[in-house]
């Protein structure tokens, strides 16, 4: 018999080896260092360039344009103007009400839906899930237009129905061009993504945490209050901060619904200052409002970092989970179903139907038997065969591809620096990749505009200026995805390649890139989808040479062409929904399979 020896079990593996101390000699300049440095420099230019420009222009007298060579026309007049106009305070207050209201609505609805779908016996949960997420394929611009068609005081569809029911005459009774309706429409536009974020973490939550509470004798409400919601807190706050930036930066709903009713928020204020209907743009005042908006967007982020810290935010996410116990709705079931399907009808079906209806009418008029006779697809033919549409479609595709390529390549390189390198520039890469997320799109748009008005790079007025601004903005989104992707690749896979004698370049080509391909592809599609839906940047950087679908829809709408707008909106919605389905299928596949 061999000697029996007791094993000291369990013995954990060595802790991960921490990065070595900074200040170590490196000796040679490797290709890796060059690429890292270049990446950081490009990011610095893309991210800090606009910010610097914004600051300069806010403190200058810009009546003669922004000046970047001495003598600088420094002045505090912009701030003086902004601070002394009572309009500023009205706009700020409106912005707070608008964003606060929309977020409150979106989160109340999303949490309810998330709970109904993930934790109750609501019938047809999967269908409900898909239909709550589906409006994501309808850009906010289009849903604003649809709601305007439904609820505008003169010939809004719902208003006409209400008037005929109550035998009323004149305008109204509902007016979508007012703050409460703007809040509601914006809120509904936020629901799909908010719902997705919350259900994702609810699904990832280890069910045994809730089961443990249940076996400890807690009631359903106690578990929800003491276990489920606290565990969801990081996800909820994260989504809240993200959606807050989405609300304050967007110009689509505030332009379509706010402008006719003279409801102005900060983003439209910036748009108006830099794109006045009459007279010269006032970039100085626009930039000053831009700084306001930037600060407004940064505050919740600081708040967020304080609450979340860097630990604990991923605690609830584990790989495998069992479906936790299902709450039976009992006699509340009909009410829950009424809520779910009622919301789906109002938020998705109704807007979609009105757009289709408007697109097959020669002009948008009252609903009557005559209107049914007027149904025609002539507008589709004329709109879709126009040169304007073809140009916009081509530009949209170029813009989407260029933006996605630019931001995803940058994101990959940055993520590698963040996750793997021992570079001293790591923290800087982290901050730079995160910043664009905090800079509202309307601010990036304005600042990019200012830069290329001055720099002798011939992109102003072309599609490329939009691509640069968008690429910058979506680096954050891309980095979020790729950082996770690289972190999931075991470091030893790279080390094994090195130990097999592979140079850095081989490690990337043969190991990292093939493994990251699914993540890259997924991110590419997501950015593509987001960029073709984006109206803010195409509108901020609009000129006749760089029309894309979203700006074409807005200009047609602004011009008063309801039918043309509706046709384009239907086509656009179809495109984004197809792209989204593609994304969903692609996202389902995993690496190495």
């Amino acid at each position, binding site marked *: 018999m061999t000697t029996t020896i*007791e094993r000291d079990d369990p013995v954990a*593996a*060595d802790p991960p080896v921490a990065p*070595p101390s900074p200040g*170590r000699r490196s000796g040679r300049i490797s290709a890796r260092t060059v690429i890292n440095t270049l990446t950081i420099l490009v990011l610095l230019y893309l991210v800090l360039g606009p910010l610097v420009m914004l600051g300069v222009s806010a403190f200058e007298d810009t009546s003669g344009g922004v000046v970047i060579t001495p003598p600088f026309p420094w002045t505090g007049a912009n701030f003086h103007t902004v601070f002394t106009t009572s309009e500023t305070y009205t706009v700020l207050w409106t912005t707070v009400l608008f964003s606060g209201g929309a977020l409150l609505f979106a989160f109340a609805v999303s949490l309810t839906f998330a709970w109904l779908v993930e934790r109750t016996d609501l019938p047809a949960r999967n269908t409900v899930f898909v239909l709550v997420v589906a409006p994501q394929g309808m850009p906010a611009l289009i849903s604003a237009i649809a709601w305007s068609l439904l609820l505008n005081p003169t010939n809004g569809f719902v208003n006409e129905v209400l008037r005929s029911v109550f035998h009323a005459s004149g305008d109204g009774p509902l007016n979508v061009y007012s703050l409460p309706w703007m809040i509601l429409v914006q809120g509904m536009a936020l629901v799909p993504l908010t719902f997705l974020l919350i259900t994702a973490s609810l699904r990832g939550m280890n069910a045994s945490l809730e089961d443990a509470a249940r076996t400890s004798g807690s009631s359903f409400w106690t578990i929800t209050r003491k276990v489920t919601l606290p565990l969801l807190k990081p996800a909820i706050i994260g989504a809240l901060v993200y959606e807050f930036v989405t609300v304050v930066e967007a110009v689509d709903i505030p332009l379509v619904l706010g402008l006719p009713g003279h409801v102005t928020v900060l983003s439209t204020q910036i748009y108006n200052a830099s794109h006045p209907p009459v007279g010269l743009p006032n970039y100085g005042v626009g930039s000053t409002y831009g700084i306001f908006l930037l600060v407004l967007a940064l505050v919740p982020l600081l708040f967020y970092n304080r609450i979340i810290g860097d630990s604990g935010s991923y605690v609830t996410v584990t790989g495998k989970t069992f479906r936790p116990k299902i709450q039976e709705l009992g006699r509340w079931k009909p009410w829950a179903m009424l809520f779910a399907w009622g919301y789906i009808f109002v938020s998705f079906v109704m807007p979609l139907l009105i757009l289709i209806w408007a697109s097959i009418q020669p002009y948008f008029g009252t609903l009557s038997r005559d209107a049914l006779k007027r149904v025609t697809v002539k507008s589709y033919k004329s709109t879709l065969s126009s040169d304007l549409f073809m140009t916009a479609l081509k530009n949209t595709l170029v813009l989407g591809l260029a933006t996605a390529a630019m931001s995803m390549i940058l994101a990959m390189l940055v993520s590698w620096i963040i996750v793997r390198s021992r570079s001293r520039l790591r923290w800087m890469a982290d901050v730079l990749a995160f910043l664009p997320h905090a800079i509202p799109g309307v601010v990036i748009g304005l600042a990019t505009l200012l830069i290329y008005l001055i720099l002798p790079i011939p992109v102003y007025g072309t599609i490329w200026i939009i691509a640069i601004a968008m690429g910058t903005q979506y680096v954050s989104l891309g980095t979020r995805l790729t950082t996770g992707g690289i972190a999931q690749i075991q470091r030893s*896979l790279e*080390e094994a390649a*090195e130990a097999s004698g592979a140079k850095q370049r081989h490690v990337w080509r*043969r*190991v990292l890139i093939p493994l990251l391909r699914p993540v890259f592809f997924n991110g590419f599609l997501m950015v593509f989808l987001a960029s073709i839906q984006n109206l803010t940047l195409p509108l901020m950087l609009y000129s006749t040479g760089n029309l894309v679908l979203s700006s074409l829809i807005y200009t047609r709408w602004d011009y008063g062409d309801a039918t043309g707008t509706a046709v384009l909106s239907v086509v656009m919605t179809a495109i984004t929904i197809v792209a989204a389905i593609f994304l969903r299928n692609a996202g389902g596949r995993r690496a190495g399979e």
Partner: protein
Amino acid sequence: MAAIRVDQLHHCYDDRGRAVTAVDHVSFDVQENEFYTLLGPSGCGKTTTLRCLAGLEVPTSGTIEMDGVVVFSSRRVVPTHRRDIGMVFQDYAVWPHMSVFENVAFPLHTGKRLSGTVIKDRVHEALELVNMREYADRKATQLSGGQQQRLSLARALVRQPKVLLLDEPLSNLDAKLREQMRKELRFLQRRVKVTTIFVTHDQVEALSMSNRIAVMNKGLIVQVGTPREIYQTPHSEFVAAFVGATSFVQGTVTSVDVEARQVSLDTTIGPLVSDMNIELAPGELVTIAIRPEAMRLSSDPFEGTNNIEAVVDIGLFVGDAVDYDVHVGDELLRVKGSPHTRFRRRDKVFVDVPPSECVLIRRAEEGEAELARPQDTLETVMIDTSA
């Protein structure tokens, strides 16, 4: 000439402003074709040492020489891909997007160009070594843990490296497979004749596979020796406790019999006679380490010198033996009894402690040796008594 020479290797890193020393001026030599094991608990610096040899970690100071070439010194850092090594990782690091063949062929594509047939031959040869030839066309993700392990070994050997580095390669396998792989790995290493450095926290692996073992603790090498030396004559309580279960008894030397090379001791379990494995003088403080399998139990007194009366706390039948905890006064002894014994709790027994099986460890100060005991052993003892 030594195949690997490590001199004053030092590695410290910065952990939130605090300097942490992972490897503390460690020096050792490894002979050509030797199977050299770094053994120690987690966090002892053994993996960091191995990663420094691979070039995956850059040491703070020291010198590393491989096959007569300096690969690390204050003036020179040879990057990983130019070191003549093969490495097997704890999680195997098999590339999931490549087939078995592609995984093994990868190291051959990195250096000078080889023709397709040469590559094919060498890959098949390497797969043959690990009995994986028929799996060449499989996807790497379709392999079981044990197969991934072999694949990873084939990949490390395909370049015919001077040095093979193994980072806890068996720890992710289940017990049966681990036992089998121990033998295979050792056979293979002898067959291909490659200098091997093996990192493990498992003393069974270390004892059964190595030519020599370096036991590490807190960044230092505390003892180097053959498996027998390490097991039978540990120089410290740490080594005794880490390599196998051991009972420790404190004592004082009362007299020394130079001729018989035996000492008489006054210990916490009564007077003991022990062979003298270190030079001692009367009055010196010692710790006596006794392996569980060195002692015998009986209900009647034994013939011979060290015959100690004890009371049984618990006996756990483990198949080929019964693991007893017995106490003598306040001292706890762990004894491996024959499977035929059936002592029960509170039974009076006699423990036979042969003088040749006592290992004496010199104790400088009262209480100091106690602190040096590794913690996980203490935990094990506590768990066992409560069982």
